[in-house]
């Protein structure tokens, strides 16, 4: 572990201004990740429609820039934890789309062997700590991940994601207090997609600038355009650097938007079609990145190659998720307790 710690990459700094090759490479990577998430989620929606995925399924479509930008600012060994809208986070952490999709279909090949489902997936290897179904619970848990970094005296940072809906939970404020008190290396990221299920943020929160919610505890906060992956990355670098320097937690509010319903069974009557269309056509994070890449000289055939590659990856994941067998009945009784 110690050797891994020494060799792991750390807080990759942003490309120098004017270095268009670096900009291009970085943005292409971001574009690829965002597109991977979107195509994955579209496929998940499709498989849900076919009855291959059950229960709750919360899609991340529209919000891809947030996790993609954040992830570009951290290094190996840093921890990530989030809520139940977690597929995008897992893919951005480098988890295998096959294992994620197979968990969605409840198969043996899934990350949790079919025992967790959409909302409860983990990868110790990738330092992804879930995947939590109880709104706001991951915020206290994220403090614990940051605490373990503090306890061990390493310089790792925990990214703790939650929605603007969760930001009204009491334990979020308990966690702000503890993190500030102990100077824990936690980046709190509020993914403000404007609706906590069907309740708009204006109807749920008396605070109108959620990035200031940590002010009573002296937590530095900032807002960022969550539909712009490079803006997110830049903001994340500032936040992560502060945490890594031992200066305590940081609160980022990413203003974003989910195109789909809260979950698959949400008719989304609480917002207008025009609002959704406006976000899709004018603020889409993937289109935004594509336009920039075009300006940087990326040609259609390169986009096509990426599209094709991702389409193949997703199809492979979907095939795997359907071919993988259901878990053995004996799996019912495993992993209740660690034996010995």
């Amino acid at each position, binding site marked *: 572990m110690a050797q891994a710690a020494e060799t792991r990459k750390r807080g990759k700094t942003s490309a120098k201004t004017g270095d268009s090759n670096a900009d291009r490479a970085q943005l292409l990577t971001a574009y690829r990740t965002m597109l991977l998430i979107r195509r994955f989620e579209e496929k998940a*929606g499709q498989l*849900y*429609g076919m*009855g291959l995925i059950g229960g709750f399924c919360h899609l991340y479509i529209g919000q891809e820039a947030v996790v993609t930008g954040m992830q570009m600012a951290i290094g190996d060994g840093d921890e990530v934890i989030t809520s139940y809208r977690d597929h995008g986070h897992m893919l951005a952490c480098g988890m295998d789309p096959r294992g994620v999709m197979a968990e969605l279909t409840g198969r043996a090949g899934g990350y949790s062997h079919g025992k967790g489902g959409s909302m409860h997936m983990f990868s110790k290897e990738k330092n992804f700590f879930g995947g939590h179904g109880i709104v706001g619970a991951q915020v*206290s848990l994220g403090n614990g*991940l940051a605490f*373990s970094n503090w306890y061990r005296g390493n310089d790792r940072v925990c990214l703790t994601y939650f929605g603007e809906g969760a930001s009204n939970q009491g334990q979020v404020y308990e966690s702000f207090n503890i993190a500030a008190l102990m100077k824990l290396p936690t980046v709190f990221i509020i993914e403000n997609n404007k609706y906590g299920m069907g309740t708009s943020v204006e109807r749920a929160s008396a605070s109108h600038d959620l990035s200031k919610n940590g002010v009573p505890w002296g937590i530095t906060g900032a807002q960022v355009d969550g539909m712009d992956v490079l803006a997110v990355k830049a903001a994340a670098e500032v936040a992560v650097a502060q945490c890594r320097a031992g200066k305590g937690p940081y609160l980022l509010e990413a203003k974003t938007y989910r195109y789909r319903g809260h979950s698959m069974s949400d008719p989304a009557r609480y917002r207008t079609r025009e609002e959704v269309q406006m976000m899709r056509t004018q603020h889409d994070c993937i289109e935004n990145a594509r336009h920039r890449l075009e300006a940087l000289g990326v040609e259609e055939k390169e986009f096509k190659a990426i599209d094709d590659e991702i389409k193949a990856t997703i199809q492979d994941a979907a095939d795997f998720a359907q071919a993988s067998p*259901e878990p053995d009945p004996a799996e019912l009784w495993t992993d209740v*307790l660690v034996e010995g």
Partner: protein
Amino acid sequence: MATQILMPALSPTMTEGKLSRWLKHVGDDVRAGDVIAEIETDKATMEVEAVDEGKLAQILVDEGTEGVAVNTPIAVLSMNGESVEMPPATAARKSAPASPKAEAPAPAATAIAAPVAMGPEKDWGPTAPITVREALRDAMAAEMRADKDVFLIGEEVAQYQGAYKISQGLLDEFGPKRVIDTPITEHGFTGMAVGAALNGLRPIVEFMTFNFAMQAMDQIINSAAKTLYMSGGQMGCPIVFRGPNGAAARVAAQHSQCYASWYAHVPGLKVVSPWSSADAKGLLRSAIRDPNPVIVLENEMLYGQTFDCPTDPDFIVPIGRAKVERAGSHVTIVAFGIMVGVALKAAETLAGEGIEAEVINLRSLRPFDSETVAASVRKTNRLVTVEEGWPFAGIGAEVTMQVIENAFDWLDAPPVRVHGLDVPLPYANNLEKLALPQPEWIIDAVKKLI
């Protein structure tokens, strides 16, 4: 190339729905994300979005059709502009796999049964008298010396030396990084400790009393107990939750409750409840070493009591083993925690009247040592359970059922439960006494059986 659009499932419970409206018509171009139809489900009217791009070539189910089963082809989309002549049935997709109902039943649960064939309890040699308070402190100190990943966290555990002085001296020995005072914020610090355990540390969380752990119940049950299972075994939670449980003395209803049956109900947790100093020291050491979340239900009234405890530095009590505190042949009295002492007092009185009671100290509630209890009942043929908590769905009910399952044919009389009265615990001195099990209650229960 063409693809069929299938009737989608739009909620976890939907099996069929009404195709209420088509928003796209044959010949229309469709882009991914376009709403193509509206469907009425059992919950609401939902929009169906296109997943693929193409031209709507055929509509197979007319709008207004009710009872359209999930996965029925409802339209055909032509892709790459070619024309399509596709009979509706040709490409019918395989429907979702059947649920595993028909498969062979899974093996029976073993999770709550204690390991069998444990042999006689080890003789740890010489003993010395110490209080339960000292035993708990010594257990933590020993484990903290042995493993630097073990730390103590809670309210007033460090500078104040413990609200009940359990952690006396630990701050001095281990410093503020390993003995950590928290604000009064049970939900927040419990969640934090669980997160630290998921990342490989071994926290001991002290609740000033278990009454306050209700504020943190979600983290204990949903995060600590279930994550191992939900992660397919990847992420365990080696954590101890400890503190006083049950009635103290005249602190009334909100501060006087036994949580034994609450926690013992939950797969993924282990639950122990020490009575003596040896129980306290040995069980807490096992709890700290255990790779699972363990609830240690202590009792404030016992903290100051002195018992002989083995002095062997390796002394430990395995989780999952009950202890026969007093041998007897006429009746089995099963108790845990503070009620073990009450049961022993009752047994003493009964012995004066010629009735020999066997008193079993459960020590572990989950896993439950069914074998020791059943073996005793096979000998005495009678069972009395004793607990401070409420009767309904309580530990006594579970012990009785375990005996019914394992030693029914040996019972000569219906088991009797002795328990705290089914009321919130009152404050008044006389009322409080009337609500909590006394030795006389046990004596009366035994005499009813014999």
